[in-house]
């Protein structure tokens, strides 16, 4: 599904990623953990195509295509989805409008019939129920005045609607209380399937209590310094990120 080779990236001339190698197979869920400033969010942004990052070396292949050559909207239509760490408020654009424009852009690109108003309404109601989102939120401006938990739920709603092949969740757990975390995790688990891959970027182990990953990678100084199974997350939780510094120094 996704193959990252020797990826280097910088922002304003400052090197953030220093040779990331990562293979994500179809149906796999990978967790990327690391301390603040390790490059986790940069990796997520580079994969989604944010243009304030400069890729200086390496390549990323997604479903046999060069991902880095694609515009952000093409990546989305090809099935790459980024759940934002800080979802953007867009006053004046209703959630409904964004959701419908998004799904039809994807469907059109993939050669499927676009949804008409009725089909869309039926589908979105179903998906909203899945993430326990009240329907009134659909008619409000995108994320405007939403609480932190509501914004994250809205990201998961978009993901559930678009059914991406590769989902990248950038610290979706941060700032969520336990109830909100459970709802988000439930949404993610419902989307999880043998056809879909996921990359969970997180600072804490607690998300992984609810979404159990197949692989865990530890990122430090812009490189993956250790990879393992789900037990690596527990080890990290126990020993703390100080342990990472020792590993990185070694």
């Amino acid at each position: 599904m996704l193959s990252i080779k020797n990826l280097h990236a910088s922002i304003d001339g400052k090197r953030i990623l220093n040779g990331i190698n990562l293979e994500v197979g179809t149906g796999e869920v990978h967790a990327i953990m690391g301390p603040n400033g390790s490059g986790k969010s940069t990796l997520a942004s580079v994969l989604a195509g944010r243009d304030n990052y400069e890729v200086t070396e390496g390549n990323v292949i997604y479903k046999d295509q060069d991902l880095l050559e694609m515009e952000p909207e093409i990546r989305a239509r090809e099935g790459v989805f980024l759940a934002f760490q800080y979802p953007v408020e867009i006053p004046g654009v209703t959630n409904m409008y964004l959701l419908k424009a998004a799904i039809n852009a994807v469907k059109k690109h993939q050669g499927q019939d676009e949804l008409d108003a009725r089909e869309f309404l039926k589908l979105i109601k179903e998906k909203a129920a899945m993430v326990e989102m009240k329907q009134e939120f659909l008619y409000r401006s995108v994320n405007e005045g939403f609480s932190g938990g509501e914004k994250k739920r809205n990201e998961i709603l978009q993901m559930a609607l678009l059914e991406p092949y590769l989902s990248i969740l950038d610290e979706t757990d941060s700032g969520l209380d336990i109830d909100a975390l459970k709802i988000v995790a439930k949404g993610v688990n419902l989307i999880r399937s043998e056809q879909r891959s996921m990359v969970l970027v997180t600072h804490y182990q607690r998300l992984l209590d609810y979404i159990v990953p197949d692989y865990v990678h530890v990122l430090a100084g812009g490189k993956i310094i250790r990879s393992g199974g789900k037990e690596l997350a527990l080890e990290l939780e126990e020993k703390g990120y100080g342990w990472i510094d020792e590993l990185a120094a070694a």
Partner: protein
Amino acid sequence: MTDIIDHYVDQYIADSARTSASLPDWLCAQKESAISQFKESGFPTLKDEDWRYTSLKSVVSKFFEVKVDETSGSADLSEFLISELDSYRMVFIDGRFSQQHSNLPDAVTGGDITALGSMTTAEFEHAPQALTQDQTTKHGFSALNVAFSSDGYVIQVADNTKLDKPVEILFVSLSENTAALPRNVIQMGNYSQAELIERHVSKNGLSALNNSTCQVDIAEGGKLDYYLVETMSNSATQVTSLNAELAKDSTFSCRTLTLGGGLVRNNLTVSLNQPGAHCDMLGLYSIAGKQHVDNHTNVIHAAPHCTSNELYKGVLDQRSRAVFHGRIKVEQDAQKTDAVQSNNNLLLSANAEIDTKPQLEIYADDVKCAHGATVGQIDETSLFYLRSRGIDETDARSLLTFAFVNDVMEQVEVEALRESLSTELAARLIDENVSLSVS
């Protein structure tokens, strides 16, 4: 400038010789006084503080003809009509009333809707105070307008009545090189209510001047929803001068929507004369090319416990230029005034220019006044967010531009008008492939 002054004064003399015998004395006196003022002042220049950002070269270099005869009825106006809009419609062509194109029943319950140019002696005897007492703010344009007093709408709404449909006034410029000078009047009775939509349009590519005035008087508890919709072609010039006088507990909602016109200047003065009066002033200008739009607003709080709420939003593309000058004056007696003003601008091009100038003059000591102005570009983070959901860059930019003006658009309460404006906005500014309807 003498030449251009003489040009209009000569036309005035010819017109007066023809019409003055049939006009009441008070109107002749107003006209005489106004032409004297025009002779003295001429058109404003960049040296006038209120006109320093707006060059009138294109207006004063052209010798427009004021149309004095009745208009021919054969023109096809269908391209200018909003078919979904159910209204009482008055149509003026090149400044002259056209009965044939209008859609007015013999009698409108609670309303008296006439054209100034065809008023009879009996009608002049019952003319509203808004007409008999000329309170127009005087500058060269309004003086010229009152001097001719050639035509325009005169609308009176009776006490305790609400008009059952909006009144739509369509000013169409069709003839090359003409000046339309409509002098308009709205008199709202006690606790009366009405919606009025004043639209200005012109044939594409036409060089014309539309110089209108409007005097609004709202009596106690009256409520007027007024829309000024400016969609003339980019070769036309439009100058509008509106003066509103608000009595106790009355409400004036004024929405100025400017999408067209090469040079547009709006002078709006609202006086809150008695306690409890309220005005909303909303403005939207969305311009491109070399369009120039200048909004001057003047809100005068002359009595205690009045409120005013002003929001102007602008989208400027290419080499367009806008001016916003918003003055709020709170007089000494106007305690407990609550006045808010904001002007927000979105620049889509590095070559567009906005000059925004709020001006607060406060002589009372127990008031709430706030003002703010912003100038910005499309937010890159929002743009990336939309693109990351599959929406292409052009559409995403259009969507964000439209979203910027959405809060003003939402306050266009007449649905057919709002739909028509959205379509026009999309056609002028936004990529045609984007459907903006929200289902």
